[in-house]
């Protein structure tokens, strides 16, 4: 009897493993293999030129030395972080405000469901389509310039995409519009998870809504805020489609909108330089990991 039971358990285990196979296979083929080969090839000279493949030949840390010595990676990391911050700071402020309003039962907002859907809508548009739209809107003969000139605000069309601040602002603004709805929903979920009795107690004690927000909502929201900050940072470091389309792959004016992933992409778009691109990916991987740890540590510090 005992023997038979043992046999059954073994059988169930077998099925567990069988059900795991699809995931493990997909994970190995599409995650582990590319990851390992990226790191592996980052130590090789390996590219294509005029229909011929060069390499792979071992060249030590040559690629890593190259990307740091010419300052490229620092410059593009700077661009990326600046544009991310320009979008993220207003995004988190607006999302906190909207989240607080939406989750505040005392306000009795009408049609809250409708507005929640509306603020999320920009996220449903493809980023590249959104960037194309802005490219056309802000062209020097585009509608924004026509309006500004017709209203006599400007004497002549302003070349938005030839101005460093304007280009960065447009990229940041697009990211803001696309993501503030998503962040609002996340923060709202966090706020609604806070025990309502705390708000009621504060109300009974005569706290103003500002005090409630800063003394109750914000501290209790910290885990969600950390999550939002880290996911947004990781997303920000991978910023690509919006500036790529808006600046027609150049990152101009003066490469001010060229992000890390655009830098990576320019290595593989013509020369298929998997070696150098691999090295950039590895640096990016380490950078993303380190920054995420930093954000986690700073926002989760015990007082």
């Amino acid at each position, binding site marked *: 009897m005992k023997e038979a039971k043992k046999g059954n358990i073994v059988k169930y285990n077998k099925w567990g493993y069988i059900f795991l196979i699809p995931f493990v296979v997909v994970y190995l083929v599409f995650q582990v293999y590319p990851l390992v080969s990226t790191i592996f090839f980052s130590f090789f000279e390996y*590219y*294509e*030129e*005029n*229909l011929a493949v*060069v390499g792979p030949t071992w060249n030590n840390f040559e690629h890593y030395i190259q990307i740091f010595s*010419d300052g*490229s990676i620092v410059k593009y990391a700077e661009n990326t972080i600046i544009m991310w911050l320009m979008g993220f700071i207003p995004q988190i402020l607006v999302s906190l405000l909207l989240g607080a309003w939406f989750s505040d039962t005392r306000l009795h907002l009408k049609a809250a469901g409708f507005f929640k859907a509306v603020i999320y809508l920009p996220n449903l548009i493809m980023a590249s389509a959104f960037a194309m739209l802005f490219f*056309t809107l802000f*062209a*020097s*003969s*585009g509608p924004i310039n026509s309006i500004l000139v017709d209203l006599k605000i400007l004497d002549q069309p302003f*070349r938005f995409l*030839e101005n*460093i601040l304007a280009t960065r602002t447009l990229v940041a603004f697009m990211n803001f519009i696309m993501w503030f709805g998503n962040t609002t929903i996340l923060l709202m979920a966090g706020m609604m998870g806070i025990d309502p009795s705390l708000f009621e107690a504060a109300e009974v004690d005569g706290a103003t809504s500002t005090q409630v927000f800063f003394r109750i909502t914000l501290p209790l929201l910290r885990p969600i805020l950390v999550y939002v900050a880290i996911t947004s940072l990781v997303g920000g470091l991978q910023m690509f489609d919006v500036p790529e389309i808006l600046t*027609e*792959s*150049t990152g*101009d*004016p*003066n*490469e*001010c909108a060229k992000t890390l992933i655009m830098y990576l992409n*320019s*290595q593989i*778009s*013509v*020369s298929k*330089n998997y070696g*150098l691109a691999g090295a950039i990916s590895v640096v990016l991987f380490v950078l993303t990991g380190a920054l995420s740890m930093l954000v986690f540590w700073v926002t989760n510090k015990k007082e």
Partner: protein
Amino acid sequence: MKMKLLCVLLSTAMVTALLAGCSGEKEGQTLNICVWNDEFQTRFIDYYPGYEITDETTKSGKIGDVTVNWFVYPNEGANYQDNLDRHLQANADASADEIIDLYCIEADYALKYVNSDYSMNLADLGITAADLSDQYKYTQDIVTDANGALKGSSWQACSALLIYNRAIAKEVLGTDDPAEVQTYVSDWDTYNDTAAKIAEAGYLMTASVNDTYRTFSNNVSKPWVDADGNLSIDANIEKWIDMSAEQVANGYTTTNDLWGDDWAKGFYNDEVFCYFGPAWFIDFSMKVEEPTSIAANGGWGAVAGPQGYYWGGTWVCAATGTDNEELVKDVILTMTADTAILEKIVTEKRDCVNSKTVLEKFAADTSYKNDVLGGQNPYALFSANLESINLQLSAYDQVCNEKMQSCMKNYFAGNATKEEALSQFYKSVKEAYPSLNVPE
């Protein structure tokens, strides 16, 4: 008995092998063509005898029993080259219906394909020098490989002109007669003097600094990249940079990108005095198909301009591994060397064709009128400098030319110094071609 059986078996095997050999040389059932826009496509549809479209959206069709498929990939940023490379590299293992048989290339990267094994020597298809003897020499030099084998053929000869807006010429210069307008743009100094007048009257001389780019870049004294892989900037390109910076500063022109909406505004409204371009530019780019455009109303005129030059052109190549050799040969000969069809391309498409006889005939034909150019006959101008075109090509030209224009835009717009823009140029070319030596 055994011996007899063996004999029968052997002979059957031999006959089968022979038959198989024959059927192996049978032409493929699919003709696949790679192009980057619909220029060759429309000419093929309009003039190749017996071509019937079976699908209006993809323009694929049939020639007799053979299905014709088009693979269209936009040109910008080496995108067409990428996709073409993918196809050509797969040709050896591709099934009969997937083999690329024909593809088009441009002068900017012709050498890359011509010097590779992915293009066929036209002589191997049975096309002789005599078949193409009426073509201009420069069009053959571009597609001749290092061993002297001719690897492609073009129906176009792309000497280019200065195309001016007649209304603005009349208003500012007091004349729209080509012979007189030419005196205002006969060299770069007079060109710039005229630009000052044009700007004073509130117009732009050109829509973009990049309009004049090819006039300089196709008159260089050395190629972008030399035989040892050293990238360098020719003195003529330097001249373009300095002249353009001054023109932007003086308000004669702008930093608009070529082909964009801002650049194309001058095709509709009297805002831009002149564009620079060859015959395909007049027919293909100036929006003649739109009734409100200046081109549709014959508002342009053409003069030789400050400097003779050529720009672009499309060459047809046979892909190595094609299973339609007979058809490919016929397409190349029909589309690029059949005088009757080339004459039709002149009269119906306003193109400048690659045939000395046809061009001479039209240059002398006083009854020929180009409606876009207000009835002017530009063929004498076109054929004037075709014999003296100076070629300095390298396989890296498309990327160098595109990057030069986009990087210098930062300098012209005041966002970078000339040195910064140049180092951005070197860096971005190096990204595309890691093996090149670039100045530090």
